[in-house]
């Protein structure tokens, strides 16, 4: 098989845009785990919700304005929903076993998926792009869908904002402190509850944002929640759970593996990342950028 340069470059760009969506998702997942030690299965549901909400928002607010408004409104709505989930459900079981938290968010996956079905039905939905985004642009003599470049830019921006937030703000320091030593937050006189709510809302904002961003590029369908969550978990694990840069690294690997894998074995490109996940676990059980734990059990 011989691939032309143009083809490889095109796959590289599409892999990068896929990676950025995964990064936006996985960083939310990893923030919640790092700070709260909660594994949020429902993260994919917020993503799906984001995509469907983007559909509704762009239908209600037609035109280019609607499209951009959706980018702000949709993630805010999923963040509010996330806040409700944290305050009314999750908060009640922080003291109990980890397993129960997992099960709770797992239950929410089912609830949300049927809720989406009730609201939007089973039909596939599409979001159309403003005309200036729908076309393609020429980079280095090759044509690319403009929207892919937009996604890549957005992912980069999120990474920068995340870095600034974690390293330059008090909230970020508190979050990093909590990730290292959870009791510290309380000792510093900061209400841990509030921090947890903020972090969870931030994560669900990111989930909704990823959904709204992917919406114009795919057919929005039921089942996109469980599809992405499995991949997103694997990405987080490959990078090292609880580590934002690990999420970025894992997402890049996953995106590239998919877009180049599809050239080699188109049928099974989906499965590559899971196989890699298995290998990483065996070689480095805490992920590529994760710290190893001293006790082996």
């Amino acid at each position, binding site marked *: 098989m011989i691939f032309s340069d143009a083809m490889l470059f095109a796959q590289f760009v599409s892999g990068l845009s896929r990676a950025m969506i995964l990064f936006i998702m996985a960083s939310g997942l990893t923030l919640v785990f790092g700070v709260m030690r909660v594994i949020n299965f429902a993260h994919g549901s917020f993503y799906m919700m984001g995509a469907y909400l983007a559909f509704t928002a762009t239908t209600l607010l037609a035109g280019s304005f609607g499209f951009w408004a959706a980018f702000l409104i949709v993630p805010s709505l999923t963040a509010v929903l996330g806040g409700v989930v944290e305050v009314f459900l999750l908060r009640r079981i922080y003291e109990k076993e980890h397993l129960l938290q997992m099960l*709770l968010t797992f*239950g*929410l996956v089912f609830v949300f*998926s049927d809720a989406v079905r009730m609201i939007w039905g089973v039909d596939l939905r599409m979001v159309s792009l403003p005309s200036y985004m729908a076309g393609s642009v020429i980079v280095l003599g090759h044509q690319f869908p403009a929207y892919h470049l937009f996604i890549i830019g957005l992912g980069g921006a999120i990474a920068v904002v995340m870095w600034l937030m974690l390293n330059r703000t008090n909230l970020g320091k508190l979050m990093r402190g909590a990730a290292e030593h959870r009791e510290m937050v309380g000792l510093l006189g900061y209400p841990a509850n509030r921090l947890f709510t903020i972090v969870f809302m931030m994560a669900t904002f990111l989930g909704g944002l990823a959904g709204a961003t992917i919406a114009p590029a795919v057919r929005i369908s039921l089942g996109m929640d469980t599809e992405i969550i499995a991949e997103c978990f694997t990405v987080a694990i490959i990078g090292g759970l609880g580590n934002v840069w690990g999420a970025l690294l894992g997402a890049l690997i996953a995106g590239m593996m998919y877009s180049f894998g599809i050239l080699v074995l188109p049928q099974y490109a989906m499965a590559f990342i899971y196989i890699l996940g298995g290998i990483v676990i065996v070689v480095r059980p805490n992920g590529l950028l994760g710290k190893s734990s001293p006790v082996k059990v």
Partner: protein
Amino acid sequence: MKKDQKKEQTDNKGMRWFGCFILGLALVILPYILEKGLSPYYLFLATKVIIWILFATSFNLVLGYGGMMSLGHAAFFGIGAYTCALLLVKTSFPPVLAMLAGPVAAALAGMIAAFFSVRVQGAFYFATITIAFCQIAYTAAFKWRSFTFGDDGVQGIPVPAFISTEASYINLYFFALAVTVLCLYAVWRIVRSPYGLLLRALKEDPIRATFIGMKGQQYRFIAFVTSAFFAGVAGVLYAFLETSVAPDILSWTFSGEVVLMSVLGGMNLFLGPAVGAAIMVLLSTFVTSYMKYWLFTMGTILVLIVLFCPKGVAGLVVDKYTSWQRKD
């Protein structure tokens, strides 16, 4: 005093045997009542409950006794079902061997999955690695059209007549019942053995258990593979019941149903998952005949159970019973 105690014990034992006898009798009469008295559909349902009881109990070996949150058990159930179905449809394999090949294939797949999953630390990593495994199996079943018939699934499985006939589910009911009782007894012996106790110690406090010299990974490996084997048995029975298998049964959300059964019934009790399985199968039939939002119902139940009744239905009943007995 001592004599009284002894007498009470023998009384208890007598009661227990009597209870078993009544239960057995009921299970033997039940299919005839269901088929003749109500409709063959109820017999189908009863058989389905039995199969799910086996699946849920085998799964609980991993979750309740091993403390491992596997979300990949649908893979073993599905591999068991697919192996048997494909052998019967595509080859002239003797049915009995095809039946045995199902669980063996499931156990082999379990070995591969366990090789990766038992060495990870933490419930989340474990869940993810098992989901990943399940996704791989699902992708294979879905995309490998020439081998698995893709999303059409394997249709028209030729079920041997001594297991099930088109006319009636009675044979299948008894076959599934016998297999399930046998498997449940095997699982019971395992969890009651010294090995079972070690497994539970490992679940309660993995670090301490490791410090006293237990080989955590090895113990978990054995539990996982055993559980995969029995899940495969359930899968074979399922293939006989439905006479078709589709890739759906390999998706990780399907694993979720069996997780819910365990939790709903009570994962800390041997028969908890069985109770959960019975409730879930009957409830899902009931709910889906009235409305289409079964997942919503199931998710809500799971959330409520986690928040208000983490011991599960059977756990709650046992608690109430013991406190009532103490008062006596």
